Each structure stands twice: as C-alpha cells, then as structure tokens.
C-alpha cells in the first residue's frame, strides 16, 4: 500500500519536471522586469489566448491582431523607449478557452519566461483568471476580450481593458431607436444566464428605466439552452415594440430563429453579441435582416489616429492583405491594447511597471480604434457603435451618424410579411 507513496513521489518529481518544461526550475525568482532594457533591446510581451476550445475563433482574431501589429511595428524598429528603439517579441500560449489554464500560463509567462508586460486573453473567465495573476505579480496587463465590470471593480492596479463596459453595451442601440421613433415604448429583454450577459441586462434595464421605456417582458434563460420558444411565446403575448437580447452569438441566433417560428414580431431587434460578427449573417441568411448589433469598432468608422495605422480603413486593408479576411472588432481591440502600451511606454520613457502604470492611467490619445482613454477602474471609455444587417446580406455601420454608411431601417416588418 505504501509503495504507492514511492510511486507518488516519483510521479510528483516527474510531474513537476514536466510542468517546469524544458528549462530547469528558475534559481532566482526575479519576476520583476528590468527597469531599463539592455542593448540590443527587446520588449517581451506575454499572452495566453484561446486558440482551441469554445472561443477559438475569437482567440485567433486576437492572436492575428497581436502578430500583425508586432510585425508592422518591428519594421519601424519597435517601440521608442527613452532614446532608443526596442523591438517587440511575443510569447503566446493557447489557454484552450479555459480559465484555469489561462491563469497557469500567465504565471508561467511571468515567472519562467520572464516577460516584461502582459497582453490579455479573450473571454470573461480567462480574463478574470489572467488578470488576477497579473495583479499577483504586479505586471501590467491590457486585455482586449473582457467587458465585465466585475473584472475592474476588484481594486486591481494592473489591469486595463479595451472593450467598453458590459452594462453600457446596448445603450447606443436604444438611443438610436428612441431618436427614430419616440412612440416605441415596450421592450422585451432576453437574458442569457452568463456573467457578461447579466451585466449587459442589468445595465440596460436601468437605462430603460432612466429613459422612460417600459420593460414589459424580461426573462433569463439557461446558458446553452436549446429552446427559447416558451420565452418567445410569453414575450409575444406582451406585444413588445422592441426586442433586446443580452446574449452571445449562439443564443442570439437561437432567439431569432425561434422568434420567427413562434411569430414574435417587433419593430426593432438588438443583441449585445451576435449581430456584430459576420457569422450571424452566414447562419441566419435573410432572417438576419433588420437586426441590430453593437460593436466598439468597424472599418467604416472614421477615426483619425496618431498610431501606425491611422484610420480604421488602413488597418482593415493591411489586415485583409495579410490574413485574407476583413478584421472584426476583436482584432482591432487586440491591436488597441498594444498601442495603449506603446503610447504609455513612450510617455514614460521606460518599461518599468510603475511608470507604465502611471501613463496608462493618464492615457488620452486618438487612435484608429477611437479615443484611447481608460476610466479610473481601467476600462476604456468609449461609446458603442451600432450595425444593422441589410437585405444584401451585409452588415453596415449605422451609428454614430457621422460615420454611418447607411441609414437605419425602421421598423422591421413582421416575419410573415418579409
């Protein structure tokens, strides 16, 4: 029986050796990044992104964003740190869309790979985990993929995010609808049982109340549910003018499909996540028409930035040339995190964490992604734009008005009249 212990012990040693990877365990735990880079100087960024698993697609968008930016900026010599230019190196791992793995990998990046600064993963769970490790080791992290306010209300000093806060997601869409039709008062809200979606729902519920709209139906459905026809049926009985969804892509598609099945009609439809990505249109075809999505960035927005790309269109063109498809906001958000670091490092004149932190907090600079400015909690202060699907099968930016490609079509006709 106790021979198990010998086996256990040897397995432990083997496990820790394997876990420690090829390099022997670090002798000195000097995880504090160097104050000034030596010549020739490089800045090493570390990131754990979901390249496999549930959010593999978005993870890939993020990774491509990081890689393209690093390549382009290195062509110009890298970041300006004080009087010299330092090239960038990225050490990236696959966190398999798993929060625990993300934390493990970030810890490895900091303690064994000795990265200087951290870039965030994609997805609420991994961002929660990874940011906790960044805070543990006091290494600044800017993340492109977590919009939950709860990530930022932990009093952490080392985390910044480039996606606008979840509670504000649907505000622009509601504003736009109200501007178009002040008589549309009744709202039905479908809420996914998920941390991000719940925050979106809480935020929009308060906003609706503030603006004097009536929430006639509001119901939560289990995450990953297969069937929302009961909810659609109950909502239909309340005759809503507007249907809103605090959701992700799969359930947004589900709600639309089953609303059509049940005959739930509305003059306007908007979802927090789903319609802002190309897959939504591919999956739903003509049924996607008229539906609104919210997004922090599209190639059509007319930002003028003081960064390597300058305008959204230039970024989109460069991205398409390199990867063969038009970038989504995930990639833009990812690049924005690196630009945030760039500007902060330039202003600080060093990559020393304390200085970088200070500059990130003070940051206020126009970029191809819009104005890069963080709230005191660390989340970007930026309004969401609105897109709508048109019957040519494409998604167009319709809000803000200054950058609108097309006009908002309202009202959406009933399903049987299309």
């Amino acid at each position, binding site marked *: 029986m106790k021979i*198990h212990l010998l086996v256990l012990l040897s397995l*432990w040693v083997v496990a820790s050796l394997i876990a420690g*990877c090829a390099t022997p365990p670090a002798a000195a735990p000097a995880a504090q990044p160097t104050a000034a880079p030596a010549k020739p100087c490089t800045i090493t960024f570390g990131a754990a992104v979901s390249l496999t698993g549930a959010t593999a697609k978005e993870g890939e968008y993020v990774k491509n964003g990081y890689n393209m930016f690093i390549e382009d900026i290195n062509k110009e010599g890298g970041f300006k740190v004080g009087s010299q230019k330092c090239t960038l190196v990225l050490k990236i791992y696959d966190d398999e869309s798993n929060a625990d793995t993300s934390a493990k990998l970030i810890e490895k990046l900091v303690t064994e790979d000795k990265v200087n600064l951290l870039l965030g993963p994609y997805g609420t769970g991994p961002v929660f985990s990874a940011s906790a490790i960044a805070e543990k080791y006091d290494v600044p992290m800017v993340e492109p993929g977590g919009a939950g306010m709860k990530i930022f209300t932990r009093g952490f000093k080392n985390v910044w995010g480039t996606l606008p806060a979840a509670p504000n997601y649907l505000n622009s869409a509601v504003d736009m609808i109200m501007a178009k039709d002040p008589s549309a008062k009744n709202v039905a809200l479908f809420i996914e049982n998920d941390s991000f979606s719940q925050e979106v729902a809480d935020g929009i519920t308060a906003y609706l109340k503030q603006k004097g709209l009536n929430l006639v139906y509001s119901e939560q459905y289990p995450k990953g549910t297969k069937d929302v026809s009961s909810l659609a049926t109950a909502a239909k009985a309340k005759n809503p003018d507007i249907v809103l969804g605090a959701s992700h892509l799969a359930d947004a598609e589900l709600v639309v499909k089953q609303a059509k099945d049940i005959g739930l009609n509305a003059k306007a439809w908007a979802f927090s996540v789903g319609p802002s990505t190309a897959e939504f249109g591919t999956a739903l075809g003509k049924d996607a028409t008229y539906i609104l999505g919210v997004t922090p960035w599209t190639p059509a927005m007319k930002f003028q930035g003081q960064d390597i790309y300058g305008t959204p269109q230039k970024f989109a063109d460069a991205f398409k040339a390199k990867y063969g498809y038009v970038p989504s906001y995930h990639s833009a958000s990812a690049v924005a995190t690196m630009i945030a670091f760039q500007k902060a490092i330039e202003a600080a004149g060093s990559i020393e964490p304390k200085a970088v932190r200070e500059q990130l907090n003070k940051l206020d600079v126009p970029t191809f992604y819009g104005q890069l400015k963080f709230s005191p909690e660390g989340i970007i202060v930026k309004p969401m734009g609105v897109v709508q699907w048109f019957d040519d099968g494409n998604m167009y930016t319709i809000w803000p008005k200054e950058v609108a490609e097309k006009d908002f079509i309202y009202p959406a006709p009933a399903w049987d009249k299309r």
Partner: protein
Amino acid sequence: MSNPKPETQNQKSKMPVTRWDMLLGPRRNIVYVVVCAVALAALLFLPRMSLSGFVLTSLTTALLLAVRAQAWNFIGGYTGYAAFGNVAFYGLGAYGTAILMTKLHWPFLPAMLIGGVVATVYAVIVGLPVLRMRGQYFAIATLGVAEATRELVSSPQLSKLTAGPTGINLPFFRPEGLSGAAAAAVGSRYFYYVAVGLLVFVVLVTWLLTRSKLGYSLVAIREDEDAAKMLGINTTWAKVAAFAMSAFFTGLVGGHYAYWRTFILPEEVFNVRYTLEGILSAVLGGPGTILGPVVGGAIYDAVSTFLTFSKPFGIDLGQFHVTILGLFIVMVIIFLPRGVADFFGRHKFSLGMFLENVRQNRV
C-alpha cells in the same frame, strides 16, 4: 443487480495479500510509516527549493485534484455509489467561502471550513432521497443535482445572496508590507501549504475510515447492499455519512479555489469537468484504496500538463489535448479497469494482466 467489484488489497487484512507485503515481511508496517513520513517531508520541503511560482502553482493544482479524487473515493470507491455530481459541493464550498469572506468579512481558513460544512449539509439534504437509488440511476441523479444546483445558485431568485451569474470577487491575498514577486512567492507558498494540509487531512480520514466500523459498513454495502442490511447495518446512515464526507472535502477544495483564484463565476465553479477529473483520477489510481486516488491524481495531472506544454517531435498537441485525454480514458478503462492499484494487487506482474482484464470484461 450484482456489482462485481475490484479487490482491494489493503482492507485491514493482517495477512500478507500482495507480493509487496510478502516481500517486505513482518516489518512492513514500519516501512510504510517511514515511507509516508519521507513523502510528507518532501512535500513540505519542496517550496524551499526555489521553484518558480509556476511550478508551485502547478503542484498546488495537482494536490487539489488529489484531494478531490480522494473525496470522491468515499462515496464512489468505498461505498460503490458512483456519484457524478460532486461539483455541486465544490461550487457550494466556493460560494460559502466567498459569501462569508465578502459579506461577513471572515478570515480565509474558517470561511473555507464553513464552506465545507455548507456543502456537507447540502449533501445530507440531497443525499437522503437520492441515495435511495442505485447504480446508474444514482449516477445520473447526482449529475442532475449538480446541474440543478448551478442553476439555483445563479438564478435571479437567489441573486441577492450570490450575485447571480456575475459571480463574486473575493478579497485579494496581499501579505503585509510586501509587493511584486516577493508577495507573489508568499502567496504561492501559502496556498500550496494549505493544499498539502488538505491532502494530509483527507488521507488521514480515509485511513481512519478503513479502520472504523463505518468503513466496514461501506465496503459491505458496496459488495452486497441487501446482505449488509440483513446483517443489521444501517445502510442509509452509512451511505449518507460517506456522501457527506465526500461533500465536505470537495467543499473545502472549492473554498480553497475561490480564495486562490480571487473570484468565482457559476459557470466556472460548477463545471462538470471538476467532477470528471476527480473520478478519473480515482479510477486511474485505484478506487477503494487509501492512496490510489492520490496516485491517480498525480498521473492524470502529469499527463494533462504534458499535453498542454510539451511539443514532442515539434507537433503541437494543444488542439488534441482533450481528445488524447479521452483516448487515455478509454485505454485505461479497457485495459486497467481497476486502476494502477492493480499493479500492486496481483500476484504476477506481466503484460498478460492487461489481456486478462479485457477477457474478464468482454462480451
């Protein structure tokens, strides 16, 4: 239906039953104790070896897996009731700890203990009806309980207490007067030692169980529940006790996780993955033995880590990580259904043992 069960070679028999026992002779108990002490000392000494924070964290994860596997062993291994819903206790332990620390500002260790108690109470309440079922029904009923618990905890109805789907942020572990790497090192060690403590605790309790009347009752229930009842064993009480013990330790691990990770989200902390890892580790190592699950946990964690990090022949296994784990499970189940403990139980160690296992179980 009868459930033929694996032999367990260390069931209190004073007669040598395995070849190791025969090899070591009459002094074997002393040898066992010494080896135990050495292993424990090694575990306690490891952090002083200037290991990187990453290695320490990996070891902590492995330790917690071993505790979860050992906890499952009470109900699954000794009692023979394959519970598939232990993650419910994990989540409840996490939530209990989180709520006590955030709303009532309790310190960590008492909060973790009460988190475990919350899970235990829940296990008793739920166990009384659910343990009446046997075999497959029990297994899926517990799976259902886990799903239902998750839904309940994250529902709007309870969100005043649990914050619903948005989860709870716990206080951050900040040692006095330190920052950066130094603080992180203290943190890593702290959680590592707590995990070691949990492991020692659960192994001790398991050992005590095997020497107690309850332990005998459980094995009797596993071998033949009706006969056990006829012998006058209060099977209901015994089963609930095993279930409660399983819940307690799983809840403790949940509490540890909550504080260690600094946040809990219902979709993370009620993820069925935690149950399955525990069961697989226990089965891999040898259910119904004192240290089987611990060994199984070590092996499982090593394989998992290997798949995540290593690139044999330059092939990135990351995308096949879970597939390979699945294959690994299937292979183990077919060729080694009684776990690694089989190696120590048989009289003759040979490759023929694998084929023998298959022959016993095939159609």
